[in-house]
């Protein structure tokens, strides 16, 4: 009798990576559809069609990038007939999850980004950020985010202000950045109030019927997606909680200093891509730390960086830049939260984690007051 030789364990649970990715994909599509419905009602059919074509084009080019990349890099001698080659490319492309990257990328681009910019950004994200690093799972930077930043930097004059005629080019984020978030404007106690009113109140900011990137304003849908993905355990719910929570608390303190009330932090978290980035980009498991402590440090630092960039340099893409910067810190964070044994975890590590993160926040607050 011949028996097979295998390494333990001999049982596996039923979860698969495909299932996890499908849940993320489903959530993204849900948010996207919500946004499209909003866009249709606010801006009409033409803009909607443009939005849809951005998404479709991005998906197509994402898949094509993978297919071509694998076609040119495959060791042809290993695959005799074209069927074997096809299976190889199909498998590799599927493993590379092009669609999720493409969706996230287009969802952060402003409505009205020209299609060629979408295409260039997609190819950049797939080829240079993902495939060149060894494919999905090996990339250091979040591909979608890098593609977005690439588009913003290389086509800055086209991407940010380019809005089809019918649409006003101002977003709440733009206006608030324009006024330096009320810093040095203590004589405008109604500033926030006016800006919020200009865009139809907080309900619009939550449900998303106002200008901005395709999906960043569908905050209500994003929250639903967050709950769904958190329930299905495909994301660490503490990343968005700590990220948004830190921003809220820090800006609340600053708001009090500036003479604003609770509307100041509320407006902060409800403008820009904070919700979208927190739920869909910061939680990308490939580019965030491997354990809980690491992810919490990551979120707190990420929040502080976002605030620094937003308040000191008034960047519209503060969230994106800071997340990209945090991506580079992931190996460092991982290394410092390595070797977490049960015993020293509770006392030593935890205090280090918290003191480091808190001191960072404190330094930031200090810097702010110093200004």
């Amino acid at each position: 009798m011949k028996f097979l030789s295998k390494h333990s364990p001999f049982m596996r649970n039923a979860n698969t990576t495909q299932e996890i990715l499908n849940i993320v994909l489903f959530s993204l599509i849900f948010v996207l559809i919500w946004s499209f419905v909003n866009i249709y009602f606010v801006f009409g059919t033409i803009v909607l069609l443009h939005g849809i074509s951005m998404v479709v084009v991005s998906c197509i080019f994402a898949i094509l990038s993978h297919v071509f990349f694998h076609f040119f890099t495959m060791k042809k001698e290993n695959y005799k007939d074209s069927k074997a080659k096809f299976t190889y490319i199909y498998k590799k492309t599927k493993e590379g999850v092009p669609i999720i990257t493409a969706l996230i990328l287009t969802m952060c681009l402003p409505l009205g980004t020209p299609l060629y910019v979408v295409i260039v950004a997609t190819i950049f994200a797939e080829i240079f950020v993902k495939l060149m690093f060894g494919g999905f799972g090996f990339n250091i930077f979040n591909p979608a985010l890098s593609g977005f930043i690439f588009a913003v930097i290389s086509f800055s004059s086209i991407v940010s202000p380019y809005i089809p005629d019918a649409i006003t080019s101002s977003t709440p984020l733009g206006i608030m950045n324009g006024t330096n978030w009320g810093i040095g404007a203590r004589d405008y106690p109604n500033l926030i109030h006016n800006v919020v009113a200009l865009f139809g109140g907080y309900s619009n900011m939550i449900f998303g019927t106002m200008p901005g990137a395709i999906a960043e304003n569908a905050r209500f849908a994003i929250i639903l997606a967050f709950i769904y993905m958190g329930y299905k355990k495909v994301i660490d719910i503490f990343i968005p909680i700590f990220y948004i929570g830190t921003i809220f608390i820090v800006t609340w303190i600053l708001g009090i200093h500036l003479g604003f009330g609770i509307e100041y932090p509320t407006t902060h978290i409800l403008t820009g891509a904070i919700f979208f980035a927190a739920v869909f980009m910061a939680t990308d498991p490939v580019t965030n730390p491997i354990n809980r402590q690491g992810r919490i440090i990551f979120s707190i630092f990420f929040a502080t960086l976002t605030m620094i960039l937003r308040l000191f340099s008034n960047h519209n893409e503060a969230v994106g830049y800071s997340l990209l910067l945090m991506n580079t810190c992931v190996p460092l964070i991982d290394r410092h939260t390595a070797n977490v044994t049960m015993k020293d975890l509770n006392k030593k590590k935890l205090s280090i984690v918290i003191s480091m993160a808190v001191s960072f926040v404190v330094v930031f607050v200090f810097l702010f007051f110093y200004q």
Partner: protein
Amino acid sequence: MGFFSGKNKVKIKGFKDLTNTKDIFEYLEPKIVAIPLRDATSETFDVHVKIGDYVKIGTNIATRKDHFVVPIFSSVSGFVKDIKEMYHVSGKIVNHIVIENDFKDEKQELFNPKENFENIPKNDIVEYIKKLGVMGLGGAGFPTYVKYNTDKKVDTILINGIECEPYITSDEINIKKNAEFLIEGTLLLMRSVDAKNGIIGIKENKPSLYKVLTESVLEHKNIKIVQTPDVYPMGWERLLLRQTLKREYDKLPIEVGVIVSNASTVIEFSKSLKTGLPAYERIITISGNGFVKNQNVKVRIGTILKEIIQEMGGYKGENLKLIYGGPMMGNTLDTDEVAITSIASSFLCMEEEKKEEPSPCLRCSRCVDYCPCGLQPVALMNAGEQKEVNLLRELSAFKCTSCGVCSYVCPSKIDVTEGVSKARDFYLSLFE
């Protein structure tokens, strides 16, 4: 378990009902037995018999002689036929003493049977453990006398009746049948180290076992039956201590005043005291979809597995894996011509399912979350592949117990446990 430390345990379907409701099948008349000259990791033995010698049940045929002294005994009466190399359950080739059974079952008592344990002087208890060559039956096979031969202060004896690996039910059956022996033995062991409390831990999904045990401890207020959640690896000493006593230790439980013993170990010890004979039979679980019959079997130590399986109807299915131990930590065997050792509790046979190709690791951190040792399996695996010694040290490679949880939870179906075990073995090999 906590907010920062992850879950550290995982719920696994038990498959225990395949065997725990059935009677014990008996196969007590093997033609030959082969007693392996290996326990735990040691193969240095003094052999006391030659080919052609006549031995009885309980004859001391060899003694482990490295830093521990553990005698091993014959499990049948008859003539020593051979001393030869055979495949051992650990996968190694090991010397075995082969004895031909004459079916007379002549016995050679080591001492007069003890009817009443209360008459045994306190200082003799460890001596009896040593004389009987009692080994931990939880899997590691560590000599029991070493644990109890201590002058540290011990307040609790923790009896491990968890059996957290799926499929295996031999301990459960054994406890159910011999609850009295378990309680008596526990009291005796408590007395030997002046421990005030005894705790018997079993899983909460075994209400009938709980009932049997609570009934038999009624008059012993100092023994408590504790039910633990049905998670893997609850039977791991560290986790069991954390769960039942909320204590953490560094290397050995004795540091925090606890000695942990497996329930079957205690039962076998009490039985031996009552008969004056060392353990020569044991219950093993035969289970899995590759066997025709799934049942617990009572066998002589040293019986060849092949005979037992033939007696039970053989195998079925294609692409079989024969596993010694449980499905999470066991190892596959190349052949079924292996002898049952005194610490073997189960043999499983499973059909190999068509496995999906592993997909790339998406760093989902499930392995990190669930690792019972609080390690980072995925990082360890990668560090092992790169042979980064410093990183392996930082990540505490040596702590991995090969529990199998990381592979079990991985959604990408990567063989993480294999990678981590290799990394650990590589790391440890640097210090030899």
